[in-house]
């Protein structure tokens, strides 16, 4: 029986080449895209879950401030881990991970290699026991035999030592500090939130406290929030109680701290990739949106299959009747059609595999991931099975039921009127186009918002500015600046300790007359020289810029928001205390965006620093290559041991919206595919209609109908469906996109013409698709079609 079904199914596939092709192309693309998206979703959801103790591991976050200025930070003071182990019940282990910015190059023999920012960390010894990161070489109990030990990843080892055994080899950081390799770590998995190239003993960090500063030792420093602290807790422990206990310990050790500051909360390790410390999440939202898009695309592909197979059921009613008359039971026919669908899916799936393999590199490129499509991976099969089984069920049951339910006697007489299930088909076509239109609207709005971000007046001018670290040049900054400014291709040079594109730090260490003692006031500090504000064309609303004189060290320039939130009237000349320095406000600048447009502008303060670790150089569009050469020459003079590196602020800016850009490109592609598959289905249906109506068309032509009449007759019904789809999709898309835009404090307008364009596009595309068949049918010779009957 099965063989017979398969044989019939195969011949059907081969004989009806046109419909088979449409079905298979639609399914192939649908399945491929569905699987690709779900792989992405799976990858997003898999972060950090490779850790066998993932359910016991929590990251400690700190909540600071209250009300509008409340922030939750991912970094906490270093003693948190120490006291957690010592005094908090329920803690099994604790690990601190502190990103190191202390070295940027390492030397081995003659080889000098650069290590990117953020790829070096100080970690506690427990790192290797709490997490599952695998030590390939080295001793898990004594990972760092002494403070000068370093553990490097496998690929880092390869870069420095090739195939030689790295253990015991010495590398020198920034040509001053030697480290001996004591272990080799398997490379961090791509879906690990913690990653890097080198791990150092946390004792190295401890040494930086020489006992002279305000904080005598690292493990007593409650004032700096910079360690990523992970706690392994007992299964029965209450994370809330642990957080409260840690907060209490904090208050005991740092007298005078505000009750709203330094409140600790535990966040599960499995959440840290998708959720920000404050619980908000862009990640989860994208995962949800993409899951929905995947489902929509698969649905569209299923609908194609259902529509074409039920439409064609009319043409197959004779076959079904004959089979019934000679003894087929309903279950036989049901199985036969299920097997036909299975076969179609099997072919489509094979092709989809090929397609996925082919596009995986591009896909990874757009998605910014390193996903693997490995058919030997159980996880990949989970995704495939989920996708295929659900789509298979969705697209097979109804047509099979419909076809197997024909009354043989009616079908033989050709009395299967299509009307009943034609309505159903129409509903499905409307759904399909509603999905597509929704995706078009989404695409337009996402792209408009990204455009808005690109073109938004940020209140400062970052064009043609690049930044670099000064290193050895810092001591000669004034001379170097003068030298550079002599070059015509360089129009500005300044120094500052923060990046104007995205400020990295805030402080609450401020005071002014009339400050409410219970108020939490966080301000972003910028230590800059006298040219910074002018070079970036930040505008003053009152007061003046730094002059570069000695007295500037006690002068502050605030932004409007800082003045407003602090509640200082006529600020210029007023007292303001910043860290330990009591000074006066000499100027106020207009607000400018120094963070993502998702955030409202926060307070900022400029203080005067004649030199810092970082230099900004402004050039012009056509002169920038020359400017870079000029700077490089100087660099070589002072920083021979460092590779020359610079970065344009435009790139920094774009990185802020990296995930949005990725999302947008993926969305563009998905929307395009959804529309393509929908049109494929429409094309199939239009062909079918033309085929069924071929006699009617012939008669009408003989009676004098024009090509336009007939095209209109054939297109009208479909276009009505597309219009209904527009009516349904518009409000839903509008609502959804409005919600998405709420993520941005600064956002583009939602305008009615967005919907109009999406609708028009859908109508146009649908019309082109249909009219192709309609015109073909209309210009066919009527004599031929009539004779065929």
């Amino acid at each position, binding site marked *: *029986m099965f063989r*017979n079904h398969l*044989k*019939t199914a195969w*011949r*059907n596939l081969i*004989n009806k080449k046109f419909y088979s092709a449409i079905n298979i192309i639609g399914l192939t693309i649908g399945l491929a895209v569905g699987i690709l998206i779900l792989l992405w979703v799976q990858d997003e959801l898999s972060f950090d879950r490779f850790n066998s103790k993932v359910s016991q591991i929590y990251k400690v976050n700190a909540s600071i401030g209250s009300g509008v200025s409340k922030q939750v930070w991912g970094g906490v003071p270093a003693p948190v881990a120490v006291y957690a182990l010592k005094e908090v019940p329920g803690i099994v282990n604790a690990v601190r991970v502190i990103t190191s910015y202390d070295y940027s190059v390492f030397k081995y023999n003659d080889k000098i290699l650069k290590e990117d920012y953020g790829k070096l960390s100080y970690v506690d010894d427990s790192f290797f026991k709490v997490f599952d990161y695998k030590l390939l070489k080295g001793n898990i109990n004594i990972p760092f035999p002494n403070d000068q030990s370093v553990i490097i990843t496998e690929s880092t080892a390869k870069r420095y030592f090739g195939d030689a055994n790295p253990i015991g080899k010495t590398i020198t950081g920034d040509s001053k500090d030697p480290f001996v390799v004591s272990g080799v770590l398997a490379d961090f998995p791509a879906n690990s939130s913690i990653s890097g190239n080198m791990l150092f003993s946390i004792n190295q960090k401890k040494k930086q406290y020489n006992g002279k500063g305000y904080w005598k030792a690292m493990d007593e420093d409650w004032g700096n929030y910079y360690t990523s602290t992970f706690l392994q807790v007992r299964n029965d422990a209450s994370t809330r109680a642990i957080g409260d206990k840690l907060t209490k310990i904090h208050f005991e050790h740092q007298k005078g701290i505000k009750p709203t500051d330094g409140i600790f909360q535990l966040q599960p390790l499995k959440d840290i990739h998708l959720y920000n410390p404050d619980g908000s999440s862009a990640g989860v939202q994208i995962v949800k949106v993409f899951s929905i898009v995947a489902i929509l695309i698969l649905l569209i592909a299923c609908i194609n299959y259902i529509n074409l197979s039920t439409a064609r059921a009319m043409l197959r009613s*004779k*076959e079904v*009747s*004959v*089979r*019934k*008359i*000679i*003894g*087929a*039971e*309903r279950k*036989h026919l049901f199985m036969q059609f299920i097997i036909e669908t299975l076969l179609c899916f099997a072919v489509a799936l094979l092709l989809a595999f090929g397609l996925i393999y082919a596009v995986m590199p591009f896909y990874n490129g757009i998605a910014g991931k390193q996903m693997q499509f490995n058919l030997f991976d159980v996880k990949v099969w989970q995704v495939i099975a989920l996708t295929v089984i659900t789509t298979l069920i969705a697209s097979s049951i109804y047509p099979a039921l419909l076809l197997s339910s024909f009354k*043989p*006697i009616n079908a*033989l007489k050709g009395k299967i009127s299509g009307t009943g299930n034609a309505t159903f088909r129409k509903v499905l076509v409307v759904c399909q186009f509603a999905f597509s239109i929704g995706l078009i609207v989404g695409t337009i709005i996402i792209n408009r918002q990204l455009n808005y971000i690109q073109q938004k007046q940020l209140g400062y001018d970052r064009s043609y500015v690049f930044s670099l670290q000064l290193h050895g040049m810092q001591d000669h900054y004034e001379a170097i600046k003068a030298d550079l400014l002599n070059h015509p291709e360089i129009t500005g040079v300044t120094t500052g300790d923060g990046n104007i594109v995205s400020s990295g730090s805030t402080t609450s260490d401020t005071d002014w007359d009339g400050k409410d003692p219970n108020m939490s006031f966080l301000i972003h500090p910028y230590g800059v020289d006298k040219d910074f504000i002018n070079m970036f064309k930040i505008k003053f609303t009152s007061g003046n810029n730094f002059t570069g004189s000695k007295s500037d060290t006690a002068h502050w320039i605030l932004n409007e928001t800082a003045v407003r939130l602090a509640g200082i009237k006529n600020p210029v000349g007023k007292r303001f205390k910043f860290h330990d320095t009591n000074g006066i406000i000499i100027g106020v600048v207009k607000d400018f965006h120094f963070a993502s447009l998702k955030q409202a502008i926060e307070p900022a303060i400029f203080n005067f620093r004649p030199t810092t670790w970082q230099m900004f150089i402004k050039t012009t569009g056509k002169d920038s290559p020359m400017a870079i050469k000029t700077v490089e020459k100087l660099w070589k003079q002072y920083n021979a041991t460092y590779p020359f590196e610079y970065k344009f602020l435009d790139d920094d800016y774009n990185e802020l919206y990296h995930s949005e850009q990725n999302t947008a490109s993926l969305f563009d592609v998905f929307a395009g595919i959804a529309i393509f598959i929908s049109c494929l289905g429409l094309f199939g249906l239009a062909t079918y209609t033309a085929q069924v109506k071929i006699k009617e068309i012939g008669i009408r032509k003989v009676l004098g109908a024009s090509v336009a009449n007939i095209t209109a007759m054939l297109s009208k019904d479909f276009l009505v469906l597309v219009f209904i789809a527009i009516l349904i999709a518009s409000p839903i898309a509008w609502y959804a996109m409005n919600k998405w835009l709420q993520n941005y404090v600064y956002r583009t307008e939602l305008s009615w013409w967005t919907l109009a364009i999406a609708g028009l596009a859908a109508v146009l595309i649908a019309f082109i698709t249909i009219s192709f068949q309609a015109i073909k049918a209309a210009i066919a010779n009527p004599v031929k079609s009539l004779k065929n009957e």
Partner: protein
Amino acid sequence: MAGMMQEAPMIKITNLEKFYRTEEVETIALNKLSIEIATGEFVAIMGPSGCGKSTLLNILGMLDDPDAGSYVFNDIEVAHFTERKRADLRKHNIGFVFQSFNLIDELTVFENVELPLIYTGVASAERVKRVEEVLDKMQIMHRRNHYPQQLSGGQQQRVAIARAVVNKPKLILADEPTGNLDSSNGNDVMELLTDLNEQGTTIIMVTHSEHDARYSHRIIRLLDGQSVMENIMV
């Protein structure tokens, strides 16, 4: 064999009625029709177009159900049978031959004939044996791997007959089996049916041709859904 009605008839219909309702018109296709047909008979049904011949045949073949009246098939009342039960009775007892052959285009001659055996669950080896046997008898063995479109009308009808008899049905229903054939091919088909009848199969055939009707034992003439005359052939 005619007239030998010592045992219960194979088919006994009494006051059978069938209506077709379309919006406003109600057509009475069969009007209180009563007929008996004995096992082994060869009956021809004749009458003008639209008098209800096909309707009757479809009800006899259990493809359709009557609106009123009784239909006893081999001592079983089937008038109120569910579709499923009718299908079951049908596939073991009745073979059909149509004017337009109704072969499945995607299947070869062999596969078309094999299909009823598959649906009744006959084992594969047995199927091959029986299909070859019938094809041999119908003299189309040499065409076994051809598709219907590659055959002439006469050959197609022989395949259709082969398919109708392969399950060894007790009853064959033929609706204008020669309607689409020339006279020579038509005669061949009639010879085949006569052979089958002589081997014991009951045959009921709708025809417009007096020539074909002469192959039967008895002619039932219908007019407006009622039996008006029966001719016994001698």
